[in-house]
Protein backbone atom coordinates (compact mmCIF):
# COMPACT_ATOMS: atom_id res chain seq x y z
CA UNK A 1 0.00 0.00 0.00
CA UNK A 2 1.27 3.45 -0.90
CA UNK A 3 2.47 5.56 2.01
CA UNK A 4 0.51 8.76 2.50
CA UNK A 5 2.28 11.89 1.35
CA UNK A 6 3.27 14.62 3.77
CA UNK A 7 0.49 16.76 2.35
CA UNK A 8 -2.11 14.06 3.10
CA UNK A 9 -0.79 13.73 6.64
CA UNK A 10 -0.82 17.48 7.18
CA UNK A 11 -4.42 17.73 6.00
CA UNK A 12 -5.51 14.87 8.23
CA UNK A 13 -3.57 16.25 11.21
CA UNK A 14 -5.31 19.59 10.74
CA UNK A 15 -8.60 17.83 11.18
CA UNK A 16 -7.35 16.48 14.51
CA UNK A 17 -6.11 13.08 13.29
CA UNK A 18 -3.50 12.24 15.91
CA UNK A 19 -2.23 9.18 14.03
CA UNK A 20 -1.43 11.33 11.01
CA UNK A 21 0.30 13.89 13.20
CA UNK A 22 2.29 11.12 14.90
CA UNK A 23 3.39 9.79 11.51
CA UNK A 24 4.56 13.26 10.49
CA UNK A 25 6.48 13.43 13.76
CA UNK A 26 8.14 10.07 13.14
CA UNK A 27 9.19 11.08 9.63
CA UNK A 28 10.91 14.30 10.70
CA UNK A 29 11.83 14.01 14.38
CA UNK A 30 15.32 12.58 13.91
CA UNK A 31 16.36 15.10 11.24
CA UNK A 32 14.90 18.00 13.20
CA UNK A 33 16.73 16.89 16.34
CA UNK A 34 20.02 16.47 14.50
CA UNK A 35 19.69 19.90 12.94
CA UNK A 36 19.01 21.33 16.39
CA UNK A 37 22.01 19.47 17.80
CA UNK A 38 24.27 20.62 14.99
CA UNK A 39 23.25 24.24 15.53
CA UNK A 40 23.27 24.31 19.33
CA UNK A 41 26.06 21.79 19.86
CA UNK A 42 24.38 20.46 23.00
CA UNK A 43 22.09 17.52 23.56
CA UNK A 44 19.94 19.14 26.22
CA UNK A 45 19.34 22.18 24.04
CA UNK A 46 18.67 20.02 21.00
CA UNK A 47 16.03 18.07 22.94
CA UNK A 48 14.29 21.29 23.86
CA UNK A 49 14.64 23.06 20.52
CA UNK A 50 13.44 20.12 18.44
CA UNK A 51 10.49 19.41 20.74
CA UNK A 52 9.55 23.07 20.83
CA UNK A 53 9.85 23.27 17.05
CA UNK A 54 7.40 20.41 16.61
CA UNK A 55 4.97 21.85 19.11
CA UNK A 56 5.01 25.20 17.35
CA UNK A 57 4.66 23.53 13.98
CA UNK A 58 1.68 21.42 15.07
CA UNK A 59 0.04 24.38 16.78
CA UNK A 60 0.44 26.37 13.54
CA UNK A 61 -0.63 23.64 11.10
CA UNK A 62 -3.82 25.55 10.39
CA UNK A 63 -1.79 28.41 8.95
CA UNK A 64 0.63 26.21 6.97
CA UNK A 65 0.33 26.43 3.18
CA UNK A 66 0.15 22.71 2.32
CA UNK A 67 1.19 23.33 -1.29
CA UNK A 68 4.68 23.80 0.12
CA UNK A 69 6.83 20.97 1.51
CA UNK A 70 6.50 20.30 5.23
CA UNK A 71 10.18 19.50 5.95
CA UNK A 72 11.75 22.87 5.09
CA UNK A 73 8.96 24.66 6.95
CA UNK A 74 9.63 22.57 10.05
CA UNK A 75 13.39 23.09 9.77
CA UNK A 76 12.79 26.79 9.46
CA UNK A 77 10.94 26.76 12.78
CA UNK A 78 13.60 24.61 14.44
CA UNK A 79 16.51 26.70 13.14
CA UNK A 80 14.93 29.97 14.19
CA UNK A 81 14.05 28.57 17.62
CA UNK A 82 17.66 27.40 18.05
CA UNK A 83 18.93 30.83 17.11
CA UNK A 84 16.55 32.54 19.54
CA UNK A 85 17.56 30.31 22.42
CA UNK A 86 21.28 30.58 21.72
CA UNK A 87 21.12 34.35 21.47
CA UNK A 88 19.16 34.59 24.72
CA UNK A 89 21.48 32.20 26.49
CA UNK A 90 24.57 33.97 25.28
CA UNK A 91 23.19 37.26 26.54
CA UNK A 92 22.51 35.73 29.97
CA UNK A 93 25.39 33.36 30.53
CA UNK A 94 27.95 33.58 27.72
CA UNK A 95 28.95 30.70 25.47
CA UNK A 96 29.04 27.15 26.77
CA UNK A 97 31.30 24.53 25.21
CA UNK A 98 29.53 22.12 22.84
CA UNK A 99 29.00 18.38 23.52
CA UNK A 100 31.07 17.00 20.67
CA UNK A 101 29.82 13.55 19.66
CA UNK A 102 31.93 10.43 19.66
CA UNK A 103 32.65 9.56 16.05
CA UNK A 104 32.77 5.99 14.84
CA UNK A 105 36.26 4.43 14.65
CA UNK A 106 36.64 4.87 10.90
CA UNK A 107 36.71 8.63 11.39
CA UNK A 108 40.17 10.03 12.03
CA UNK A 109 41.43 12.87 14.15
CA UNK A 110 40.90 15.18 11.20
CA UNK A 111 37.14 14.68 11.31
CA UNK A 112 37.10 15.41 15.01
CA UNK A 113 39.03 18.61 14.30
CA UNK A 114 36.52 19.50 11.62
CA UNK A 115 33.62 19.05 14.04
CA UNK A 116 35.37 21.25 16.59
CA UNK A 117 36.02 23.86 13.91
CA UNK A 118 32.31 23.83 12.92
CA UNK A 119 31.32 24.28 16.57
CA UNK A 120 33.68 27.26 16.79
CA UNK A 121 32.12 29.05 13.81
CA UNK A 122 30.17 32.24 14.55
CA UNK A 123 26.51 31.39 15.06
CA UNK A 124 25.14 32.71 11.74
CA UNK A 125 27.81 30.91 9.73
CA UNK A 126 27.36 27.70 11.69
CA UNK A 127 23.63 27.74 11.01
CA UNK A 128 24.21 28.24 7.29
CA UNK A 129 26.68 25.34 7.22
CA UNK A 130 24.33 23.05 9.13
CA UNK A 131 21.34 23.82 6.94
CA UNK A 132 23.43 23.45 3.74
CA UNK A 133 25.49 20.35 4.49
CA UNK A 134 23.56 18.75 7.35
CA UNK A 135 19.95 19.29 6.32
CA UNK A 136 20.70 19.50 2.59
CA UNK A 137 18.92 22.80 1.87
CA UNK A 138 19.80 24.93 -1.15
CA UNK A 139 21.07 28.48 -0.53
CA UNK A 140 17.66 29.76 -1.71
CA UNK A 141 15.85 27.60 0.86
CA UNK A 142 18.28 28.73 3.58
CA UNK A 143 17.64 32.34 2.61
CA UNK A 144 13.90 31.79 3.00
CA UNK A 145 14.41 29.97 6.29
CA UNK A 146 16.55 32.71 7.81
CA UNK A 147 14.73 35.55 6.08
CA UNK A 148 17.93 36.97 4.56
CA UNK A 149 18.97 37.53 0.91
CA UNK A 150 20.48 34.61 -1.00
CA UNK A 151 23.66 36.64 -1.42
CA UNK A 152 24.03 36.81 2.35
CA UNK A 153 23.68 33.04 2.61
CA UNK A 154 26.30 32.47 -0.10
CA UNK A 155 28.60 34.92 1.61
CA UNK A 156 28.18 33.22 5.01
CA UNK A 157 28.83 29.81 3.46
CA UNK A 158 31.92 30.99 1.63
CA UNK A 159 33.35 32.63 4.73
CA UNK A 160 32.51 29.61 6.86
CA UNK A 161 34.31 27.27 4.45
CA UNK A 162 37.27 29.62 4.35
CA UNK A 163 37.38 29.73 8.15
CA UNK A 164 37.13 25.94 8.39
CA UNK A 165 39.98 25.47 5.94
CA UNK A 166 42.12 27.91 7.90
CA UNK A 167 41.35 26.18 11.19
CA UNK A 168 42.25 22.79 9.78
CA UNK A 169 45.47 24.11 8.22
CA UNK A 170 46.53 25.75 11.48
CA UNK A 171 45.91 22.51 13.33
CA UNK A 172 47.84 20.59 10.70
CA UNK A 173 50.85 22.92 11.03
CA UNK A 174 50.76 22.76 14.83
Amino acid sequence: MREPSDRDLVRRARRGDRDAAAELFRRYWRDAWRAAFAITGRRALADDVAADGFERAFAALGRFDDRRPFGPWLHRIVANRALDILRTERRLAGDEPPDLPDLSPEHGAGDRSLLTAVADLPLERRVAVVLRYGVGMTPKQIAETLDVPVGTVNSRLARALEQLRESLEVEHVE
Partner: protein
Amino acid sequence: MSSELERRLEGLFHELPQPEPEVGEIALAASLAALAPSARPRRALRAGVLALAAAAVVLAIAAGSLAAAGALHVSLGSKPMPARAGLTLPKGASGVAVVANGRLSVVTRSGFRLQGLPVTAAALSPHALFVAAGIGRSLVAMAPNGRRAWSVPAAGPVVAIAWAPYGNRIAYVVNAGHRFVLHVIWGNGTNDAVIDRAVRAVRPAWRGDSLALAYVGAGGRVVVYDLSHATHRTVPGLGAMRCPHAAIGWATGTPVLRCIRPSSVERQVRR
Protein backbone atom coordinates in the same frame (compact mmCIF):
# COMPACT_ATOMS: atom_id res chain seq x y z
CA MET B 1 30.97 21.25 -7.75
CA SER B 2 31.56 20.10 -4.20
CA SER B 3 34.99 20.54 -2.72
CA GLU B 4 36.71 17.92 -0.60
CA LEU B 5 35.83 19.93 2.51
CA GLU B 6 32.15 20.07 1.54
CA ARG B 7 32.05 16.30 1.02
CA ARG B 8 33.67 15.78 4.41
CA LEU B 9 31.08 18.04 6.01
CA GLU B 10 28.21 16.12 4.44
CA GLY B 11 29.69 12.85 5.66
CA LEU B 12 30.24 14.18 9.17
CA PHE B 13 26.68 15.34 9.62
CA HIS B 14 25.49 11.81 8.92
CA GLU B 15 27.56 10.76 11.92
CA LEU B 16 25.81 13.06 14.36
CA PRO B 17 24.21 11.31 17.34
CA GLN B 18 20.58 10.28 17.49
CA PRO B 19 18.03 11.66 19.96
CA GLU B 20 17.31 9.47 22.98
CA PRO B 21 14.11 7.43 22.47
CA GLU B 22 12.44 8.78 25.61
CA VAL B 23 13.07 12.34 24.44
CA GLY B 24 11.17 11.51 21.26
CA GLU B 25 8.31 10.02 23.25
CA ILE B 26 7.99 13.12 25.40
CA ALA B 27 8.25 15.42 22.40
CA LEU B 28 5.59 13.45 20.53
CA ALA B 29 3.16 13.63 23.43
CA ALA B 30 3.77 17.36 23.84
CA SER B 31 3.39 17.97 20.11
CA LEU B 32 0.12 16.07 19.94
CA ALA B 33 -1.10 18.08 22.91
CA ALA B 34 -0.39 21.25 20.90
CA LEU B 35 -2.30 19.98 17.89
CA ALA B 36 -5.30 22.20 17.17
CA PRO B 37 -6.99 21.84 20.57
CA SER B 38 -10.42 22.67 19.21
CA ALA B 39 -10.24 19.79 16.76
CA ARG B 40 -9.38 17.19 19.34
CA PRO B 41 -12.24 15.12 20.59
CA ARG B 42 -13.18 15.85 24.18
CA ARG B 43 -13.38 12.97 26.59
CA ALA B 44 -16.51 12.41 28.54
CA LEU B 45 -16.39 13.51 32.13
CA ARG B 46 -16.58 10.80 34.72
CA ALA B 47 -18.74 11.09 37.76
CA GLY B 48 -16.35 9.07 39.88
CA VAL B 49 -13.55 11.49 39.23
CA LEU B 50 -15.78 14.35 40.26
CA ALA B 51 -16.13 12.73 43.64
CA LEU B 52 -12.37 12.26 43.81
CA ALA B 53 -11.81 15.92 43.00
CA ALA B 54 -14.27 16.95 45.70
CA ALA B 55 -12.46 14.73 48.18
CA ALA B 56 -9.19 16.39 47.18
CA VAL B 57 -10.61 19.81 47.99
CA VAL B 58 -11.65 18.62 51.44
CA LEU B 59 -8.17 17.23 52.02
CA ALA B 60 -6.63 20.40 50.72
CA ILE B 61 -8.61 22.54 53.12
CA ALA B 62 -7.62 20.22 55.96
CA ALA B 63 -4.02 20.84 55.07
CA GLY B 64 -4.47 24.55 55.71
CA SER B 65 -1.19 25.13 57.48
CA LEU B 66 0.61 24.04 54.37
CA ALA B 67 -1.40 26.17 52.01
CA ALA B 68 0.48 28.94 50.29
CA ALA B 69 -1.56 32.05 49.65
CA GLY B 70 -4.27 31.16 47.14
CA ALA B 71 -2.86 27.75 46.32
CA LEU B 72 -3.36 24.36 47.89
CA HIS B 73 -0.84 21.63 47.26
CA VAL B 74 -2.31 18.31 48.20
CA SER B 75 -0.85 14.86 48.17
CA LEU B 76 -3.41 12.09 48.12
CA GLY B 77 -2.95 8.59 49.52
CA SER B 78 -0.65 5.95 48.20
CA LYS B 79 -3.03 4.53 45.61
CA PRO B 80 -2.02 5.80 42.16
CA MET B 81 -4.70 7.53 40.13
CA PRO B 82 -5.16 6.45 36.50
CA ALA B 83 -2.89 8.69 34.44
CA ARG B 84 -5.50 9.56 31.82
CA ALA B 85 -8.55 9.81 33.99
CA GLY B 86 -10.89 12.67 33.15
CA LEU B 87 -10.85 15.69 35.41
CA THR B 88 -13.51 18.11 36.49
CA LEU B 89 -13.24 21.43 38.25
CA PRO B 90 -14.18 21.52 41.90
CA LYS B 91 -16.81 24.16 42.57
CA GLY B 92 -15.27 27.62 42.82
CA ALA B 93 -11.84 26.55 41.59
CA SER B 94 -10.01 28.18 38.69
CA GLY B 95 -8.12 25.05 37.79
CA VAL B 96 -6.86 21.65 38.77
CA ALA B 97 -3.52 20.11 37.85
CA VAL B 98 -2.68 16.51 38.64
CA VAL B 99 0.61 14.74 38.08
CA ALA B 100 0.00 11.01 38.30
CA ASN B 101 2.68 8.49 37.41
CA GLY B 102 4.61 11.20 35.59
CA ARG B 103 1.64 12.31 33.48
CA LEU B 104 0.07 15.74 33.76
CA SER B 105 -3.64 16.40 33.51
CA VAL B 106 -4.94 19.96 33.71
CA VAL B 107 -8.38 21.50 33.57
CA THR B 108 -8.99 25.22 34.01
CA ARG B 109 -12.03 27.45 34.08
CA SER B 110 -10.67 29.26 31.00
CA GLY B 111 -11.01 26.08 28.96
CA PHE B 112 -7.42 24.84 29.12
CA ARG B 113 -7.64 21.07 29.03
CA LEU B 114 -4.60 18.87 28.74
CA GLN B 115 -4.25 15.19 29.55
CA GLY B 116 -1.45 12.68 29.66
CA LEU B 117 1.51 14.96 28.96
CA PRO B 118 4.70 13.37 30.37
CA VAL B 119 6.21 15.81 32.87
CA THR B 120 8.60 15.71 35.78
CA ALA B 121 6.74 18.38 37.80
CA ALA B 122 4.05 20.98 37.24
CA ALA B 123 2.37 23.99 38.84
CA LEU B 124 -0.54 26.21 37.89
CA SER B 125 -0.14 29.97 37.77
CA PRO B 126 -2.37 32.16 39.95
CA HIS B 127 -5.88 32.07 38.50
CA ALA B 128 -4.76 28.98 36.53
CA LEU B 129 -4.06 30.98 33.38
CA PHE B 130 -0.81 29.10 32.68
CA VAL B 131 0.82 25.88 33.73
CA ALA B 132 4.55 25.56 34.28
CA ALA B 133 5.92 22.07 33.77
CA GLY B 134 9.19 20.24 33.72
CA ILE B 135 9.41 18.56 30.32
CA GLY B 136 12.56 16.63 29.57
CA ARG B 137 15.35 18.97 30.60
CA SER B 138 13.39 22.18 30.35
CA LEU B 139 11.03 24.36 32.31
CA VAL B 140 8.07 25.10 30.05
CA ALA B 141 5.16 27.49 30.49
CA MET B 142 2.09 26.62 28.51
CA ALA B 143 -0.58 29.11 27.57
CA PRO B 144 -4.31 28.41 27.89
CA ASN B 145 -4.48 27.18 24.29
CA GLY B 146 -1.94 24.47 25.08
CA ARG B 147 0.84 26.17 23.17
CA ARG B 148 4.19 26.89 24.79
CA ALA B 149 4.45 30.46 26.01
CA TRP B 150 8.14 29.98 26.65
CA SER B 151 10.69 27.40 27.67
CA VAL B 152 14.12 27.52 29.21
CA PRO B 153 16.67 24.71 29.17
CA ALA B 154 17.71 23.29 32.55
CA ALA B 155 20.75 21.34 33.71
CA GLY B 156 18.51 18.31 34.31
CA PRO B 157 14.91 17.33 35.00
CA VAL B 158 12.85 19.87 36.93
CA VAL B 159 11.60 18.10 40.05
CA ALA B 160 9.57 20.81 41.81
CA ILE B 161 7.89 24.04 40.73
CA ALA B 162 6.16 26.80 42.70
CA TRP B 163 4.53 29.80 41.08
CA ALA B 164 4.53 32.99 43.18
CA PRO B 165 1.08 34.19 44.27
CA TYR B 166 1.44 37.38 42.20
CA GLY B 167 2.48 35.36 39.15
CA ASN B 168 5.63 37.39 38.67
CA ARG B 169 8.14 34.70 39.67
CA ILE B 170 8.51 30.93 39.46
CA ALA B 171 10.76 28.95 41.79
CA TYR B 172 11.91 25.57 40.54
CA VAL B 173 14.28 22.84 41.61
CA VAL B 174 16.48 21.07 39.06
CA ASN B 175 18.06 17.66 39.48
CA ALA B 176 21.54 18.52 38.25
CA GLY B 177 22.87 14.98 38.66
CA HIS B 178 24.81 15.00 41.91
CA ARG B 179 22.74 17.78 43.54
CA PHE B 180 19.51 19.72 43.39
CA VAL B 181 19.66 23.38 42.42
CA LEU B 182 17.05 26.03 43.21
CA HIS B 183 16.28 28.65 40.56
CA VAL B 184 13.93 31.60 40.39
CA ILE B 185 12.79 32.89 37.01
CA TRP B 186 10.44 35.69 36.06
CA GLY B 187 6.95 34.68 35.08
CA ASN B 188 7.65 35.61 31.47
CA GLY B 189 10.55 33.17 31.24
CA THR B 190 13.36 35.73 31.51
CA ASN B 191 15.96 36.57 34.16
CA ASP B 192 16.62 33.03 35.30
CA ALA B 193 18.81 33.04 38.42
CA VAL B 194 20.31 30.37 40.67
CA ILE B 195 19.29 30.95 44.30
CA ASP B 196 20.95 27.97 45.97
CA ARG B 197 23.19 25.31 44.42
CA ALA B 198 22.44 22.62 47.02
CA VAL B 199 18.86 22.08 48.15
CA ARG B 200 16.49 19.18 48.73
CA ALA B 201 13.97 18.11 46.13
CA VAL B 202 11.05 19.69 47.98
CA ARG B 203 8.64 22.14 46.36
CA PRO B 204 9.54 25.65 47.60
CA ALA B 205 6.79 27.80 49.10
CA TRP B 206 6.21 31.47 48.39
CA ARG B 207 5.15 33.90 51.07
CA GLY B 208 1.81 35.55 50.29
CA ASP B 209 3.43 38.82 49.20
CA SER B 210 5.67 36.99 46.68
CA LEU B 211 8.72 38.69 48.17
CA ALA B 212 10.11 35.71 50.09
CA LEU B 213 10.59 32.07 49.35
CA ALA B 214 10.99 29.18 51.76
CA TYR B 215 12.84 26.04 50.70
CA VAL B 216 14.63 23.09 52.25
CA GLY B 217 18.40 23.37 52.10
CA ALA B 218 20.69 20.42 51.47
CA GLY B 219 21.17 19.93 55.21
CA GLY B 220 17.43 19.61 55.79
CA ARG B 221 16.99 23.07 57.29
CA VAL B 222 14.33 25.45 56.10
CA VAL B 223 15.81 28.55 54.50
CA VAL B 224 13.95 31.75 53.66
CA TYR B 225 15.22 33.70 50.68
CA ASP B 226 14.26 37.36 50.67
CA LEU B 227 13.96 38.63 47.10
CA SER B 228 14.05 42.28 48.12
CA HIS B 229 17.46 42.03 49.72
CA ALA B 230 18.74 38.83 48.05
CA THR B 231 19.51 37.38 51.49
CA HIS B 232 19.20 33.84 52.88
CA ARG B 233 18.04 33.17 56.45
CA THR B 234 17.80 29.80 58.15
CA VAL B 235 14.60 29.45 60.14
CA PRO B 236 15.25 28.43 63.76
CA GLY B 237 13.59 25.24 64.90
CA LEU B 238 12.81 23.96 61.44
CA GLY B 239 15.96 22.02 60.77
CA ALA B 240 17.09 18.50 60.09
CA MET B 241 13.68 16.94 59.63
CA ARG B 242 14.35 13.35 58.71
CA CYS B 243 11.49 12.89 56.33
CA PRO B 244 11.78 11.62 52.78
CA HIS B 245 8.42 13.17 51.88
CA ALA B 246 8.49 16.66 53.30
CA ALA B 247 6.31 19.59 52.31
CA ILE B 248 6.76 23.21 53.16
CA GLY B 249 4.26 26.05 53.39
CA TRP B 250 3.52 29.30 55.19
CA ALA B 251 1.24 29.81 58.15
CA THR B 252 0.74 33.23 59.76
CA GLY B 253 3.87 34.59 58.11
CA THR B 254 6.15 31.78 59.21
CA PRO B 255 7.27 28.85 57.10
CA VAL B 256 6.16 25.43 58.30
CA LEU B 257 7.78 22.14 57.42
CA ARG B 258 5.63 19.04 57.58
CA CYS B 259 6.07 15.39 56.92
CA ILE B 260 3.39 14.00 54.63
CA ARG B 261 2.39 10.55 53.51
CA PRO B 262 4.22 9.11 50.52
CA SER B 263 2.21 9.56 47.36
CA SER B 264 2.43 8.98 43.67
CA VAL B 265 -0.27 11.54 42.98
CA GLU B 266 0.20 15.25 43.38
CA ARG B 267 -2.69 17.60 42.94
CA GLN B 268 -2.85 21.35 42.89
CA VAL B 269 -6.07 23.32 43.07
CA ARG B 270 -6.03 27.04 42.28
CA ARG B 271 -8.74 29.21 43.76
